[in-house]
């Protein structure tokens, strides 16, 4: 046991004192924050250029009221000049494009005959904007054709706001769904990153012991299993330290940069395309911002099963990391150098990628759908997928099944990995095949 402590300490020190570790730890938060602000800055510059769109309205249905200037788009009425003249002006003045609305009073026909002339292919944003303007106007006219009064029309514009609550009567809002998604996806993604980065680091550390030929010296003093475990734990502690430093530094850098550059950090979030929110969710956010429901959200966050989330995060984090890093350790033991690891990497990366994809696709659309549930039971994907599901409420029964399966698989895989590790570390020279690994299990 005291040997295990010695090994963990050495692995931790070896990792933490490494120059590249120190550089990565302090440089990458700077880079990440810097990149974030760069993106905001660039997209700001990009949007700052206002595009002028000229229009010729033959139908005389549209007014300056319809074509309001919006973010980045300015409309110019050239109806008086006629289409031919307007085209010349558009080219001369280097306007972005010319919108031609034909001379017809038939709404249906009109809707199909509007044209937009432009040298560029207009972006979806611009087309959306133009189409919205036109559709809104024409819809109103059509309704009037049916004899519906304008006031009746605005009165009929009813917005439903469904109040969500569970059966114990606690009220929730739509925004909490977004928060749950963020918590779930965030922790799942975090685990995947941690496994890939620090699992590979365990593997490299095993390979280093093989190539430097110290392995047999160590193995004559400690049991191979202790060495493997010590490596896995030592690297994990180094990783946790690095993550903690990153968290603190990103917070500090972000704070400092926000103040220095005067960039609103909410803009940062808006520009980061992490989450594809649909318009309803966006409206929900707006609604909350406008109605000052922040307090209510805080209350709702507190109503989330926070303890459950934290405990389960720790369990799945440890389970997932230990499971995968022992596979990484076995791979490291089986080969002589890093280039030989490629053939064994696919079976490790594949379930991880699958878990994240399933998480982002299946869990978001239906956290309790059959695919999401199945993948949250399968041990190689459960650490990621189950964590994504937990904020949406997973019963203890389901958790128990998933946890027991993970635990059993963990024990099995560690046994398996330890066997391969034990034999592999003393094998030099030959690049092993899967068949060799199978043979080693029987040594």
């Amino acid at each position, binding site marked *: 046991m005291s040997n295990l402590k*010695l090994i963990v300490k050495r692995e931790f020190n070896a990792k933490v004192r490494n120059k590249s570790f120190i550089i990565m730890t302090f440089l990458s938060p700077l880079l990440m924050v810097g990149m974030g602000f760069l993106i905001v800055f660039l997209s700001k510059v990009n949007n700052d250029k206002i595009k002028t769109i000229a229009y010729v309205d033959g139908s005389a249905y549209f007014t300056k009221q319809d074509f309001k200037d919006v973010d980045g788009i300015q409309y110019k009425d050239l109806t008086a000049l006629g289409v031919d003249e307007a085209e010349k002006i558009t080219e001369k003045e280097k306007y972005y494009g010319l919108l031609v609305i034909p001379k017809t009073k038939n709404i249906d026909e009109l809707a199909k005959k509007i044209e937009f002339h432009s040298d560029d292919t207009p972006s979806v944003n611009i087309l959306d904007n133009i189409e919205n303007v036109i559709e809104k106007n024409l819809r109103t006219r059509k309704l009037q054709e049916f004899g519906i009064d304008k006031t009746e029309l605005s009165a009929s514009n009813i917005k439903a706001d469904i109040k969500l609550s569970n059966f114990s009567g606690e009220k929730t809002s739509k925004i909490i769904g977004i928060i749950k998604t963020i918590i779930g996806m965030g922790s799942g993604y975090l685990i995947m990153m941690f496994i890939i980065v620090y699992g590979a680091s365990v593997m490299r550390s095993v390979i280093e012991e093989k190539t430097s*030929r*110290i392995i*047999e*010296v*160590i*193995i*004559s003093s*400690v049991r191979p299993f202790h060495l493997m475990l010590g490596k896995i734990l030592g690297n994990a502690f180094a990783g946790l330290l690095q993550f903690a430093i990153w968290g603190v530094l990103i917070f500090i850098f972000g704070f400092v940069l926000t103040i220095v550059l005067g960039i609103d950090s909410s803009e940062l979030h808006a520009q980061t395309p992490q989450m594809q929110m649909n318009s309803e969710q966006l409206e929900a956010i707006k609604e909350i911002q406008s109605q000052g429901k922040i307090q209510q959200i805080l209350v709702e966050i507190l109503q989330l099963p926070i303890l459950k989330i934290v405990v389960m995060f720790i369990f799945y984090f440890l389970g997932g990391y230990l499971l995968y890093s022992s596979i990484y350790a076995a791979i490291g033991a089986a080969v002589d150098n890093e280039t030989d690891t490629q053939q064994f990497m696919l079976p490790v990366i594949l379930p991880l990628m699958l878990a994240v994809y399933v998480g982002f696709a299946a869990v978001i659309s239906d956290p309790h759908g059959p695919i999401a549930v199945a993948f949250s039971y399968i041990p190689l994907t459960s650490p990621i997928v189950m964590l994504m599901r937990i904020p949406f409420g997973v019963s203890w029964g389901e958790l128990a099944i998933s946890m027991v399966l993970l635990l059993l698989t963990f024990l099995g895989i560690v046994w398996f990995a330890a066997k391969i590790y034990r034999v592999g570390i003393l094998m030099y020279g030959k690049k092993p095949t899967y068949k060799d690994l199978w043979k080693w299990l029987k*040594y």
Partner: protein
Amino acid sequence: MDNLLVAENIIKNYGDYRALNDVSLAVPRGSVFGLLGPNGAGKTSLIRIINQITLPDQGTVYLDNEKLEAKHIKDIGYLPEERGLYKSMKVGEQALYLAQLKGLSKKEAKARLEYWFEKFDISNWWGKKVQELSKGMAQKVQFIVTVMHKPKLLIFDEPFSGFDPVNANLIKDEILQLRDEGATIIFSTHRMESVEELCDHIALIHKSNKILDGKLIDVKKQFRTNTFEVGIHTENTEILRNELNEKFSISEASFNSIYDNLKLNIQIPKGTSPNELLQFLTSRAEISHFVEMIPSVNDIFIQSVENN
């Protein structure tokens, strides 16, 4: 006899391949025991079993009359053939770590390391990284970490590879000194001249079987050929050569001599005393050189391996 290490009927299989076939071995306390054999014979497999790196499929190993178990790790020092150190770790730190793994306290380990570093005159290496050392320098550190916990049993697998002759001698003297201080040494090598020099017992493993073992001198007696190297001065070499050829089997010998004009290796029939040969020779010529040809370990090794 008092044996420190006894291995009984060890069998070890790797899949379908049998690496050790019913090998038994007794290493007397205080001896330097040569474990010999061609490449792939099973030496390293046996050594790994003694070090508890792998377990035998059958058979038992006893250390100091106790069945081998985890606590014996600290009683054994092992210098493997495939050896090395953490390249980016500092020498002193690394040695401390390895000593602590062998059960020494940090304080004790430090004191002993200082003694050894001073002895080898390498105290200024303490803060250097291993990658800054030459191969020979690293080997010295490696030797120190093998012996510093004062184990009862030391196992050296090709200890002299990587050393220049000066340092090889230094290590050789250290090994003998450790033996004099009471350690028992198992010494595995292909370099037969160092076996002659160091070992008092040997065992030969070939194709997973032990084919020979015992005290070096007994083994040599067993391989005695009754051949004598003789330097003769005579007027007529041809007559004497023919006479000898009728009675014994002879071959040309070569050694330094200023007087002899006939140099021969003469093998006498088993059971014959060398005195008979001497009497025969002295009655006919002057003899200035008469030495029994003792089989070298190298000869014994090659002969045994070829006969099997």
